């Protein structure tokens, strides 16, 4: 029977994948054809969604973007045998966008049936956990440390060091918490992985539990991701049934349990201590550090907190060795990063590449330039708290240290592209406005600084004492950087100051009144 893959990833569904699946089923029934429809995750070629794949003797053949209206014509073109059609792209694996990538974390995403454990194992799944079950906690931590893996959530803290702190802590209970509160604009990799390959996250967290002696794990997923929440909950139930989670994992005597917790629309809960408060059922107020969560985290117990993609990178490291992973990347940025091409871009999607690739390669070679066809003027890298990078810096290699040296941050590798119609003063204002909306309110520089920031930028835009107000803005930013409790207030000045620095002309435009 012919097998057809139609994603049920949220992005694919947003472009009508659900209707396409129904239409293909109906058309097949009408023509008396037998086929098996598999709802896979997304391959990450998001501008081609819904991307329908047909399994043929030569491999999987891709068609996209398919709408329900195209379905009859696809059958006429004999797409079930890989027939030619204007929406056809040939073999999926041969599509340049995919072929040029280095897929480690996302190797299975879009390939397998996300909820089939057999499919997962057939594609190398649970090899990392199986290897980990034979090792001591210290050996697992050593492998993760040697791989050079750094936190993929944005801060880039060495994962192995964090795990070692938890391993060495003495406590009756330890926890593993996954930060899946992917609230930054321009990011969707966590969501894609949870929807397309959820067992990888389960496997990575279980390895973390075994490594550090933690028996309980929680995944904090934002409520804006209903599809990911549903998929993760189903995957956990499957993993329990197949004894990959529970009191006695695969007869090893090791225990690890996992549950999903839903966020409630607060951006700040992506900050790790705020997330802990939220996981305890409280307001998401940021906690001062120290104590660090690795020593006093959830319910005051030692806690590993990592991003989805940090956990998801771990199974490969255990299965293939630290050296294998370490061989990708540059400098102190080892391995691969799943870059997310977003915003005003022609071919938006997920590009997993080793560190060292430049912004230009990502946006021009992979992304095909802007969606509007106009020149790219700025790229915001690393989310709402990341810098606006001007075209003159598009050739910087994506590396934590190189970016930091140039006043920017790689963060989680989310790229939001803006064309030359963007008004950078408005973007700077938005950064402050967003901080004012989403600040938890605990510390003054963030709570009040953001409000004052909006007011000052408004005065600059209105042409009121611009030079003086730019000095005030700079002073305010410095106060927020120095005095804020967490990255929300501490990094909001990054987009603001980068906009002022690289695009001063936008802060010096004639006002409506002056133009009269």
């Amino acid at each position, binding site marked *: 029977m012919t097998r057809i893959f139609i994603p049920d990833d*949220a*992005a694919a*569904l*947003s*472009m009508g994948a659900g209707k396409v699946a129904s239409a293909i089923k109906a058309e097949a029934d009408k023509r008396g054809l037998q086929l098996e429809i598999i709802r896979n995750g997304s391959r990450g070629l*998001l*501008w081609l*969604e819904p991307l329908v794949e047909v399994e043929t003797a030569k491999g999987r053949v891709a068609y996209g973007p398919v709408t329900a209206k195209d379905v009859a014509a696809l059958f006429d073109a004999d797409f079930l045998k890989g027939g030619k059609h204007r929406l056809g792209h040939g073999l999926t694996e041969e599509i340049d966008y995919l072929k040029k990538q280095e897929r480690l974390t996302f190797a299975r995403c879009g390939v397998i049936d996300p909820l089939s454990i057999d499919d997962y194992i057939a594609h190398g799944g649970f090899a990392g956990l199986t290897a980990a079950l034979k090792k001591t906690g210290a050996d697992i931590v050593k492998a993760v440390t040697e791989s050079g893996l750094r936190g993929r959530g944005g801060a880039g803290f060495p994962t192995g060091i964090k795990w070692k702190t938890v391993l060495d802590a003495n406590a009756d209970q330890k926890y593993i918490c996954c930060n899946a509160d*992917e*609230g*930054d*604009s*321009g*990011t*969707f990799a966590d*969501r894609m992985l949870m929807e397309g390959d959820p067992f990888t996250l389960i496997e990575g967290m279980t390895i973390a539990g075994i490594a550090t002696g933690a028996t309980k794990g929680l995944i904090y997923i934002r*409520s*804006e*991701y*209903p*599809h990911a929440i549903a998929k993760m909950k189903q995957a956990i139930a499957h993993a329990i049934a197949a004894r990959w989670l529970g009191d006695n994992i695969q007869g090893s005597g090791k225990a690890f349990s996992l549950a999903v*917790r*839903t*966020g*409630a*629309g*607060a*951006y700040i809960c992506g900050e790790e201590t705020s997330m802990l408060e*939220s*996981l*305890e*059922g*409280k*307001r*998401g107020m940021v906690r001062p550090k120290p104590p660090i969560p690795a020593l006093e985290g959830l*319910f005051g117990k030692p806690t590993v907190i990592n991003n989805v993609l940090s956990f998801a990178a771990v199974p490969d490291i255990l299965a293939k060795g630290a050296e294998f992973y370490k061989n990708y990347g540059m400098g102190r940025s080892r391995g691969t990063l799943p870059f*997310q*091409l*977003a*915003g*005003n*871009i022609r071919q*938006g*999607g*997920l590009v997993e590449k080793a560190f060292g690739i430049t912004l230009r390669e990502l946006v021009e070679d992979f992304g095909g330039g802007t*969606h509007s066809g106009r020149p790219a003027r700025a790229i*915001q890298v690393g989310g*709402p708290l990341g810098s606006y990078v001007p075209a003159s810096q598009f050739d910087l290699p994506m590396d934590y240290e190189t970016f930091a040296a140039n006043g920017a941050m790689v963060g989680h590798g*989310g790229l*939001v*592209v*803006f*064309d030359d119609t*963007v008004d950078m003063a408005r*973007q700077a204002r*938005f950064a402050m406005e*967003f901080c004012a*909306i*989403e600040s*938890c309110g605990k510390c003054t520089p963030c709570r009040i600084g953001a409000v004052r920031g909006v007011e000052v930028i408004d005065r600059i835009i209105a042409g009121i004492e611009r030079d003086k107000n730019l000095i005030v803005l700079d002073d305010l930013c410095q106060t927020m950087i120095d005095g804020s409790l967490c990255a929300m207030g501490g990094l909001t000045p990054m987009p603001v100051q980068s906009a002022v620095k690289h695009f001063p002309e936008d802060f010096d435009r004639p006002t409506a009144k002056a133009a009269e």
Partner: protein
Amino acid sequence: MLTKPEMSPESERARDVCSRHGNRPDELIEILHEVQDELGCVPEAVVPVIAKAVNLSRAEVHGVITFYHDFRREPAGRHVVKICRAESCQSMAGEALCNHAKASLRTGFGETTADGSVTLEAVYCLGNCALSPAMMVDGELHGRVDAGRFDEIIAETLSEAAQ
């Protein structure tokens, strides 16, 4: 003799939700989500019931409800339209979409249309940034939404409801 006042049906349901979560205070956010799913919002009247069940003060429960954007004190309209206003959607003329939505629905963000059919909300990122602008209608995600597609989706949503 004092008799115990009768519990309203809403309060009873809220109490049942708490009990399904073992009356655990750390599950308060899950409890509030479920109460809102059942009752359409978290009405003021159930706050003391929840507080008592999970052994927190009313002030603590009130604090949690008001901290998170998701929880409503009043029921929403029959449909909830959330439009993303974050950077990625801004780069793809998201503000024009927002203005179109406000004008065509004749309502503002955080408000409900006069006939109670649609509540319009701003959201900061729906994780569909490669296909901006994005919006979510009753939990269903839509990408590459321009004014034309917005009108189609809204018309479809309202006509489905009418059937």
